């Protein structure tokens, strides 16, 4: 318990600091527009009143934290979750393609890693391409994937999920290659003395040794998956999902909506990373790891 308190206090301190900085910048950034408004209306408010006004604009340059919080609360809890105005609805749409893409990405990543570890040719030929694949900006690839797949009649969840896959398979490949190669020579020698087959070496030594590496890379992969899903929603014609919400809000300069959609995205990301982390710890414990 003490350890959680040791973690919570510093995190909250930083959060408090950030909120203060945020308020300061909200006032500074919204001031020019507020001055303009006041000048046209012929008003001359006092300093306190003026600051209050900069923090209460309907479409501010930088919304104040409480504006975002209220918007987030209202569009999460005060509307029916299946309504288009609900962030829960949009988060769910994004989450479903995130999870599908994450599942694809993890499976693909593991498959490629197994290939790389066992086949020398793949090790030499595949790795440079995999690294190169991640240097291509996802924003450039995403619309093409959506458009090409739409042309062959695949629309909806799958194209978005494929963009998540594209982003999430990479950390899994890197982590799993490292994990599958983590057994020491002495352990491999041991298996050799038993005349163990390649598949026995894989299932009894390499795979279990790679499990901790898998969960570490899955944490990175699930966050990347979410980014992929959001990016995938941008060119889909803005129907539903956090990405769509971001896009439509930006059409109308609804900055508060943008920020609350961002918060929704971060909450989903944090939850996903946490769930993968907890799953990793449970598996670790089940595999007899020394409790930390």
């Amino acid at each position, binding site marked *: 318990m003490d350890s959680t308190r040791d973690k919570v206090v510093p995190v909250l301190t930083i959060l408090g600091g950030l909120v203060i900085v945020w308020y300061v910048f909200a006032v500074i950034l919204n001031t020019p527009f507020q001055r303009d408004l006041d000048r046209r209306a012929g008003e001359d408010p006092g300093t306190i009143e003026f600051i209050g006004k900069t923090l209460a604009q309907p479409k501010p340059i930088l919304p104040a934290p409480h504006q975002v919080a209220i918007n987030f609360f209202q569009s999460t809890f005060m509307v029916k979750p299946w309504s288009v105005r609900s962030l829960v609805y949009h988060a769910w749409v994004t989450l479903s393609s995130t999870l599908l893409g994450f599942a694809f990405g993890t499976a693909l990543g593991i498959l490629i890693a197994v290939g790389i570890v066992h086949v020398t040719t793949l090790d030499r030929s595949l790795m440079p391409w995999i690294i190169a694949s991640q240097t291509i900006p996802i924003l450039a690839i995403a619309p093409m994937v959506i458009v090409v797949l739409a042309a062959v009649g695949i629309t909806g969840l799958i194209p978005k999920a494929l963009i998540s896959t594209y982003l999430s398979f990479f950390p899994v490949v890197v982590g799993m290659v490292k994990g599958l190669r983590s057994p*020491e020579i*002495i*352990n491999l*020698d*041991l*298996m*050799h*003395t*038993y*005349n*163990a087959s390649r598949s*026995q070496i894989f299932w*009894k*030594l390499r795979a*279990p*040794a790679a*499990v901790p590496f898998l969960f570490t890379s899955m944490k990175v992969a699930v966050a990347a998956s979410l980014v992929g899903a959001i990016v995938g929603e941008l060119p889909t014609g803005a129907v539903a999902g956090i990405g769509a919400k971001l896009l439509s809000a930006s059409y109308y300069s609804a900055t508060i909506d943008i920020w609350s959609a961002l918060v929704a995205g971060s909450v989903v990301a944090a939850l996903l990373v946490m769930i993968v982390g907890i799953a990793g710890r449970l598996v670790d414990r089940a*595999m*007899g*790891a*020394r409790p930390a």
Partner: protein
Amino acid sequence: MTSDSANVVSAEKLGLTFQTNDGPVQALTDVDLSIRKGEFVSFIGPSGCGKTTFLRVIADLEKPTTGSIYVNGMTPSQARRKRAYGYVFQAPALFPWRTIERNVALPLEIMGISGADQKARIARTLDLVNLAGFEKKYPWQLSGGMQQRASIARALAFDADLLLMDEPFGALDEIVRDHLNKQLLELWARTDKTICFVTHSIPEAVYLSTRIVVMSPRPGRVTDVIESTLPKERPLHIRDTPEFLEIAHRVREGLHAGHSYED
């Protein structure tokens, strides 16, 4: 092919040269050695003398470059495929995600031994190394000495007649090592196995062995083979008898002789 079948290991003019970046290194040259069934043979010498390499050649973990070697009358590779030996490494090399009993079961699973038989073998071998009651523990819950005993149990589990041990107690403190040496002798007496034991400790070699092979480096070779005159029954205090000290002296002489020309 059929080199003397009474010998568990027979090497003739065995040589192994490693190709390294600094040129070839002669790890073993002209090793002629036969090990009979039931012997306890120690290999002693400074690092680089090829004692571990010789053990690894027997185990088919290294391939010799010249000469011939037969294990149970077969090539090392054939012998390995027939699971002719159990190998105990310098480190326990237990799998951390397996309990002690599952670690001992590892070779049995690989060799396709049935569940009921596995259980019986695990119980018997853990009993043999005095680890009964620790079946469900994970390796990190055991001391270094206990972990090494578990790895010996694992090497014994599939009943190979030959046990190859590469400095198994090298990383342990002397008190634990004495204790394990005594247990190892008892185990050897009870099981009638052939044991090849690599060490760099003179007292350990003399205490354990029926025969001591003294080796020397650059190039790695056998300089002396000493038959022990000690009885098979060896309490720990035998190490203070004149007979013991005489053998230890001869081993030390052999080690010095091997070194003389290079200093």
